[in-house]
C-alpha cells in the first residue's frame, strides 16, 4: 500500500498555500464615468431556462433603473470548502447567499462587509423582522448581511412509513416522547430507521443544538463579553438521553450513525428513514434531485422537550464582499433587495419568480418559511404565487400552523462551528458506544469548549 491517496490532502495544502499567493480585490471597479460594476452570484445555469430568462430581464430592469450600475452575473454558489480560497483569490462575487450557520464565524473573522448604514437606510431592508436581523449582527449591533430567506428547523418525516407503521401522518409527534414512540413503531413494523440524525462535518453539533433548545437549554452564555459553555445541564442531557434510548433501548435508529447533511437527505429520500431533524427546504433536493415523492414528504415543527423550549432558525443571507468598494456595496445591497426581497412585496416580482421556478421544475414553489415582513404581506404573497405552487401544501400544515407561535433561537454567537465540531463527537459517542456516560461526556465537552471560547 505504497501510494495512499493523499492527493486530496496535497490539493488542500496547495490550496492553502496558493490561496495566499493571490490577493486581487474587487474594490476598484468604478469607471471614469462613475459606473459601478458589481458581480452577483447565483446566476441561474443554462439548464434553468425560465429562471435564467427572469434573471436576465431583472438585470435589464435594474440597470435601467440604476444607469450607473452594471451587473455581471456569476453562477458561483457558496461552498464552505472553497469560500476562503475564492476570497483570497478575489474571485468571490460582490454579493452572494450564504447560510445562517456560517454567518457568525465569518463576522468574527471580519470576512463580511459591514452594511449597517446601507441596510438601515434602505426602504426594504429596514423593514426586516428584527429577530431575524439578529442573525447577521455582531455583539455591537452592526449588520453584516441581508437575510433574504428564513425558516425554523423542522422535523421532516416520511408519511408513507408513518402509514405502514400504523401512525397518523397528519398528526406528527409534537414531543420527544412521541418521537421516540413513533420511531420505535416505524423500526418495529417496517425494519427502517425510525429516527436518524446527522452527526458529521459539524452537523451533529448543529442538530444537537436544535434539540437542546427544544428542551429549553442553551449552548453558550456570554457574561461581560466573555463566552463560556452552558450546555452541561439538564436540557442537553435530556436530548442525549432521548437519543440514547432510541438507539440502544429501542434499537430504532438503524445502523448508520455517521451521516453528513447530504447523506442523511439521500437516506431519507430513499425511504430508509422515518424522521430526522432538518429544514423545510430539504423538500426541494429530496423531490427534485433525489427521487423522493412529494406526497410522502411531511414537515412538522421541532418537537418540544419542555414548555420553555425554543426552535433554532436558519436560512439564507446575502453577504457582501469585504474587498468591495463602498459604491459597490451600496449597489450590491440595492440589487439584493431588488432581486431577493422585492419578490415578497411586489406582485410582478412574486408572480414572475414563482412562474419561472415552476416552469424549470428544479425549484419547489410554496415551501414553508419564516416570513421576513409583516403578516399582511405574507397573505398577499401566498395569493400571488398560489397558481404556481408545485408542492404538496397539506403536508406542511403541521409546520405552518405552528411556526408563527414558536420561540425563535439563533445559533451560538461565539465560535459556533468550533462548538459544533466538539458536539459532533458527543453525539457520535452516544450513538456508537452502548454505555456512554452522558454526564462525563458533557463535562469533558464543556471543558474543551470553555478552552476554545477563552481563545476566541
Amino acid at each position, binding site marked *: *500500500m*505504497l*501510494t*495512499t*491517496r*493523499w*492527493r*486530496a*490532502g*496535497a490539493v*488542500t*495544502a*496547495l*490550496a*492553502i*498555500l*496558493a*490561496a*495566499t*499567493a493571490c*490577493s486581487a480585490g474587487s474594490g476598484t471597479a468604478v469607471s471614469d464615468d462613475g459606473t459601478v460594476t458589481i458581480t452577483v452570484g447565483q446566476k441561474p445555469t443554462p439548464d434553468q431556462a425560465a429562471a435564467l430568462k427572469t434573471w436576465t430581464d431583472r438585470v435589464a430592469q435594474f440597470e435601467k433603473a440604476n444607469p450607473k450600475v452594471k451587473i455581471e452575473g456569476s453562477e458561483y454558489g457558496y461552498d*464552505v*470548502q472553497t469560500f*476562503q480560497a475564492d*476570497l*483570497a483569490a478575489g474571485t468571490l462575487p460582490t454579493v452572494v447567499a450564504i447560510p445562517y450557520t456560517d454567518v457568525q*464565524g*465569518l463576522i468574527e*473573522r*471580519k*470576512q463580511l462587509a459591514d452594511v449597517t448604514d446601507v441596510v438601515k437606510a434602505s426602504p426594504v431592508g429596514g423593514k426586516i423582522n428584527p429577530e431575524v436581523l439578529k442573525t447577521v449582527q455582531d455583539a455591537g449591533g452592526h449588520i453584516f448581511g441581508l437575510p433574504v430567506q428564513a425558516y425554523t428547523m423542522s422535523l421532516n418525516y416520511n408519511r408513507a412509513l408513518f402509514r405502514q407503521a400504523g401512525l397518523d401522518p397528519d398528526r406528527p409527534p409534537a414531543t420527544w416522547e412521541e418521537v421516540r414512540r413513533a420511531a420505535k413503531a416505524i423500526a418495529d413494523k417496517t425494519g427502517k430507521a425510525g429516527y436518524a440524525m446527522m*452527526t*458529521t*462535518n*459539524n452537523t451533529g453539533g448543529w442538530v444537537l443544538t436544535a434539540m437542546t433548545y427544544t428542551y429549553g437549554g442553551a449552548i453558550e452564555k456570554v457574561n461581560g463579553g466573555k463566552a463560556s459553555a452552558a450546555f452541561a445541564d439538564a436540557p442537553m442531557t435530556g436530548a442525549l438521553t432521548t437519543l440514547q434510548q432510541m438507539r440502544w433501548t429501542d434499537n430504532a435508529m*438503524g*445502523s*448508520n*450513525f*455517521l451521516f*453528513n447533511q447530504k447523506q442523511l437527505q439521500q437516506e431519507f429520500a430513499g425511504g430508509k428513514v422515518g424522521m430526522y431533524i432538518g429544514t423545510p427546504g430539504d423538500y426541494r433536493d429530496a423531490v427534485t434531485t433525489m427521487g423522493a415523492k412529494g406526497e410522502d414528504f411531511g414537515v412538522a415543527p421541532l418537537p418540544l422537550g419542555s414548555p420553555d423550549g425554543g426552535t433554532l432558525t436558519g436560512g439564507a443571507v446575502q453577504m457582501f464582499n*469585504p*474587498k468591495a468598494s463602498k459604491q459597490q456595496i451600496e449597489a450590491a445591497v440595492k440589487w439584493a433587495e431588488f432581486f431577493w426581497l422585492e419578490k415578497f412585496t411586489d406582485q410582478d416580482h412574486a408572480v414572475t419568480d414563482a412562474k419561472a421556478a415552476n416552469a424549470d421544475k428544479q425549484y419547489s414553489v410554496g415551501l414553508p418559511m419564516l416570513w421576513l415582513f409583516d403578516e399582511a404581506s405574507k397573505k398577499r404573497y401566498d395569493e400571488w404565487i398560489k397558481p404556481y405552487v408545485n408542492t404538496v401544501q397539506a403536508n406542511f400544515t403541521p409546520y405552518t400552523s405552528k411556526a408563527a407561535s414558536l420561540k425563535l433561537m439563533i445559533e451560538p454567537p461565539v465560535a459556533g*462551528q*468550533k462548538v459544533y*465540531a466538539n458536539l*459532533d*463527537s458527543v453525539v*457520535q*459517542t452516544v*450513538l*456508537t*458506544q452502548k454505555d456512554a456516560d452522558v454526564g462525563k461526556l458533557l463535562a469533558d465537552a464543556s471543558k*474543551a469548549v470553555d*478552552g476554545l471560547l477563552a*481563545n476566541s
Partner: protein
Amino acid sequence: MSLPLSAEDGRATRVTRRVARWVRRGGISTLVFLIPTLVVFGLFSWWPIARGLVLAFQQTNLVTAAEWVGLDNFRKVLADPLLVTAAGNTAWFALLALVFGYPAPLALAVFVRELRRGRALFSVLAYLPVVLPPVVAILLWRVFYDASDSGLFNTLARGLGLGPFQWLQDARSAMPSIVLEATWANAGSTMIIYLAALSGVRTDLYEAAEIDGASIWRRIVHVTLPQMRTILLITLLLQIIGTFQVFTEPFLFTGGGPANATTTILMLLYNYAFINGDYGGATALSVLLAVFLGLLSLLYFRLTRRWSTT
C-alpha cells in the same frame, strides 16, 4: 616587459575562463531549456511553499493585511487537545497500513511472478482497484460496510458464523476498516513497481538455488528479497510518508468519527483551513507535519544505510 598580474586580476581571468568554458560547453542552451521548468516549479511549487512558511507565522483573514504573530500559531496548534488524538490516529493508520498494507503488494507481485500462466490477467485484476476513482471506491466500500445484518460484509461474515460487525460505526473497528479499503485500493500500483523490480533479479541465482534444492519460500527469502532491498526500502519510506498524510479515506468514510476515532492530522489541518478559516493554524500544522516527516526520513535513511545497496 609585462607587468606581473595582481591576485585580483588573476581571479578575474580565472572566472572569465570558467564562464567561457561554460558557454562553449553549451551552458546557455542548458539554461534556456531549464528556464521553463524553473519557472513552473518556482511559481507553482516553491513559491506557495515559501508563502505557506511565511503564513505559519502570521494571522490573516485574507481580506486585510496579514499580521505577524510570531510562534502563536504553533503554540495554538500544539495546545489543541485534538492534535494528540489526530497524531495518535494517524500513527495508528500508518502502523496498520505498514503491517497489513506493506507486505500485500509484495506478496501479490511474487505470486504473479511465480505464475506459469495467466500472469497478465492477474496483474490486471490486481491493478484494477487503482483505476477506480477514490471517491467511487470509497462510496462502494461504504455500502459493503453497511452495519445492518443485510450489509454485504455482514452477510459474508454470517456465512462464517460471525458478526454482525459495526465496521465504520464503532470507534475500535473504524480505522482497521479504512486501512483494509486503502490496502485494497493501493496495492496494485506498488505491485507493478515490484513486478518491474522482480524482472531485474538475476535468474541465474534462482537457477542455482533451484539446483541446490531451495523451496519457493527459501528462494524468496534468500534471493528475491535481498535483490530488491533498495526498492523495498524506498517504497517503505514513501508509504510511511504517504500514510502520514492520509485524508481522503477518513474524510469520505467517517468524517473523522465516530468520536474522532478516525480524525487524522490532515483532517485536522483541513478543518483549521476550510471550516474554521484559520489559515495561520493550518499552515503552522502543515509545517510541523513537514518537519516531522523530514526528520523521520533522515532518521530512516540513517538507520537503513547499512542495508541499502547504494
